[in-house]
């Protein structure tokens, strides 16, 4: 009977090898995604963190945006003293709910030892002081102003404003209206109610997702492609006749106005649809696509923000991103910011920022630096070039033409006394056209034009009127607040 006994033992060895293999599968192969990708089911990191104070989050001027307070049970909980002001960019961190925004992106640094593998080591050396503080680039004054002005302009559907420092990529303002108060969402009932509000969608960050058609503000992209590719000059003559057929369907200008043959500068300052649609068709989907890609279209923003909470800007068909070379894309109408374009506000602010910074697009960031409890900076988020979009000459030429838009064109409402402002208006029709229809209104630009300190995009949804009349005045007040 000894032979079958030995074989039986061999079989049991195999069975145990299977157990060891399965344990290896869960502890090594699948460990990474089980630990990070199942945030609603697996909250071990967060639970571990509640015994340790999480680092505070501060605005650029030191205002506290988020901090941890200890309750009677010795458990730390997040408080957001500024309420809804920074709800969208900063997000929340609650054990009951999980994390979002900057809180989620910089969780490791904010949580300190709590969520990293050096717990035992830290306990041995008695270092349980928690995470580092995060200083952001957000400006509370301008943030507040932006949210108030957008809410006034469009109380129902709201809108968004993003202001960047074009030289560093620092995000100074990221406003999305309607907002929400992160202190409130820790109650599951309140969170469900906000999540169920299909009409206003207060939990959607309109600066990063939920894009609208950018309308004529997109003509800056078409203009850059036209000049930088060498196909056109600022004084090139273009056809501004009304009702030129684009993709077989006549395209009207605003108020059906016909401009005849005009130069490119005039075409931009008067925002002539037919001229830019013909330029885009002339350049073709491939050239347009190349410049859009350099501006950041077609991919999720390189922002320090959770990727699943951002969407790529571009042409969408049936909910899927399609390239401008696709046979479903109407390149002419895309060139004037219509067609199937869905563009969140950050992307349009980046378009303005790239022009402002001499053609170099800086990688956007909300985080500025981490500071430990002794005030030492432990990590700094350095400015980095994301891409070189255009030559310096092109950027200078486009700047001149955008200045003309504010000086003598549709963007007059953005004029700031004693400063030259460069800008471009946008008015995208949401549904059928006619008098009194609601539009998505845009204004993008930068100031001062000769030494840009801010580049911005302001968008207001579902309002009667034009970008120049509604969005440009908001931009003007933001410039006055931020440039001193």
């Amino acid at each position: 009977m000894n032979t079958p006994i030995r074989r039986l033992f061999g079989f049991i060895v195999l069975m145990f090898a299977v157990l060891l293999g399965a344990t290896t599968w869960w502890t090594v192969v699948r460990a990474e995604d089980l630990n990070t990708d199942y945030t609603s089911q697996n909250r071990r990191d967060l639970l571990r963190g509640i015994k340790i104070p999480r680092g505070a989050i501060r605005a650029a001027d030191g205002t506290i945006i988020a901090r941890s307070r200890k309750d009677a049970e010795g458990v730390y909980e997040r408080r957001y003293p500024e309420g809804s002001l920074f709800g969208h960019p900063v997000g929340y961190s609650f054990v009951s709910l999980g994390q979002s925004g900057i809180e989620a992106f910089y969780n490791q640094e904010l949580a300190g030892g709590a969520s990293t593998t050096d717990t035992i080591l830290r306990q041995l050396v008695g270092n349980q002081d928690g995470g580092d503080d995060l200083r952001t680039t957000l400006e509370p004054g301008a943030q507040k102003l932006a949210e108030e002005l957008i809410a006034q302009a469009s109380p129902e559907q709201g809108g968004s404003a993003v202001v960047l420092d074009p030289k560093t990529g620092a995000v100074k303002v990221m406003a999305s209206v309607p907002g929400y108060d992160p202190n409130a969402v820790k109650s599951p009932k309140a969170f469900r109610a906000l999540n169920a509000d299909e009409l206003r969608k207060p939990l959607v960050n309109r600066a990063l997702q939920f894009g609208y058609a950018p309308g004529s503000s997109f003509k800056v992209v078409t203009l850059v492609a036209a000049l930088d590719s060498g196909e056109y000059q600022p004084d090139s003559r273009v056809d501004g006749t009304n009702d030129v057929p684009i993709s077989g369907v006549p395209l009207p200008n605003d108020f059906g106005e016909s401009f005849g043959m005009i130069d490119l500068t005039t075409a931009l300052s008067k925002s002539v649809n037919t001229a830019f649609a013909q330029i885009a068709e002339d350049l073709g989907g491939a050239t347009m696509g190349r410049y859009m890609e350099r501006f950041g279209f077609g991919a999720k923003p390189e922002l320090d923000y959770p990727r699943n909470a951002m969407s790529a800007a571009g042409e969408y068909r049936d909910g899927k991103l399609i390239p401008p070379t696709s046979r479903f894309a109407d390149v002419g109408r895309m060139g004037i910011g219509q067609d199937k374009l869905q563009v969140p506000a950050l992307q349009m602010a980046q378009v303005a920022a790239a022009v402002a910074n001499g053609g170099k697009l800086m990688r956007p960031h909300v985080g500025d630096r981490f500071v430990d409890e002794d005030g030492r900076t432990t990590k700094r988020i350095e400015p980095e070039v994301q891409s070189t979009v255009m030559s310096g000459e092109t950027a200078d030429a486009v700047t001149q033409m955008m200045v003309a838009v504010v000086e003598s064109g549709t963007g007059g409402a953005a004029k700031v006394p004693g400063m030259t402002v460069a800008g471009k208006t946008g008015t995208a029709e949401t549904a059928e056209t006619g008098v009194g229809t609601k539009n998505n209104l845009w204004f993008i630009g930068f100031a001062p034009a000769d030494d840009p300190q801010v580049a911005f995009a302001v968008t207001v949804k579902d309002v009667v009127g034009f970008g120049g009349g509604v969005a440009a005045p908001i931009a003007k007040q933001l410039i006055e607040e931020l440039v001193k």
Partner: protein
Amino acid sequence: MNARNRELLALVPASLLVAAGFAAVFISRKDLLGGLDGTNEISNASLTYGGMFLALCFATHVVIRFTLPHADPYLFPLVAMLASFGLVEIYRISDAFAGKQAFSFLLGLGVFAATIIVFRDYQVLERYRYVIAMVGLGLLFLPSFFPTVNGAHLSIRLGSFEAQPAEFAKIAIVVFLASYLRDTRQLMVIAGRRFLGITVPPLKHFGPLLVVWGAAMVLLFFIKDIGSSLMFFGALLAMIYVATNRISFVLVGLLLFLAGAMLLAGQVGHIQGRIDAWQDPFDPALYNQQTGGSYQLAQGLFAQADGGILGQGFGGAVLDLPRAYCPDGQVICSLLPAPHTDFVYAVIVNELGLVGAAGLLIVYLLIVQRGMKIAVLARDSFSKLLAAGLTCVFALQVFVIIGGVTKVIPLTGVTLPFVSYGGSSVMANFVLLALLLLISNKARREA
């Protein structure tokens, strides 16, 4: 060095493990996120549970030294090693449980000594084989006559006392099979008729084995216990294989089991639910199901992933939610349910990592190796079959629970021998250990 001195020396690693483990847990206790009873309060007296356990190990060694001088010297130290793993983890979960578990070991030692004295000549067991078989089956089905505990007929509860008769039933059934197969193993092969190239044993001799098959099916049907029936049926097939050396018997048996299981799975909703939860534990619908869903399995897998290669260290696993985060109206809310019984393996992996798990599996495998060695050394068929059968049912129990927790097979709540919390389990496994040592003592004395 004689066998007993080797045994004494081999107890040193277990002692070190208990001492270091208790010290580590005691020190880190105040930083934990609440134990099972929702508190981090710990009494200094609890450190004595470790000392009590070590004293028991030594006492057991003395018992063996005087009663079974020739028995295998490594079996008991290996078991002590397992028990140390378990006791430290249980201490980490709740110091009150550790106290009760140490007391269970005391009872277990009593049962161990009693088994050795009463069954000194264990071959008398053969005479009572049918009585033992009836007792075994009776124990298996006893819980069906009591109200369910945690949704299954696995244990009976009388007041505060809870027992799992199946732990003892497994030993009785192996004893019966060993004695029955010793008599009939020749006949099953010789008197069988050839049919389609397979030897079919005469029904007369195969009948009682069909009863065991039936019992496994009934277990599956009434007690809704995939794991236990797999354990019993697996032991049956293994013992038939050892007795007859005919792999064809095993294959036929396996087909019978699969056919029965498939037939039943379609009929019994509970089993289908278990299988669904097993196939996709992270599916939100199954995960959020109030009862019978996949929450427990999913959390067990998260706990293992959290452990990684080296583990979070003793006390590093997150087992409970603080009161403030409990869903409304719940008094105790555990993140990982049953951490001290069914899911103790997940907790060990969480705190000691893949490395600790590999260590634990190696200790189990060494015990299996010693058991099989005893079977090989034994002179008579009954001893061989008994040793192989006991070892096999032990190994299968380990496979059923660890396989369930690591999603190799559908989950069934059986204990992890010598590691999980539970008096019945500790006592039954001490009986199993005593029988193996008795067989070993006889075999090595004669050698």
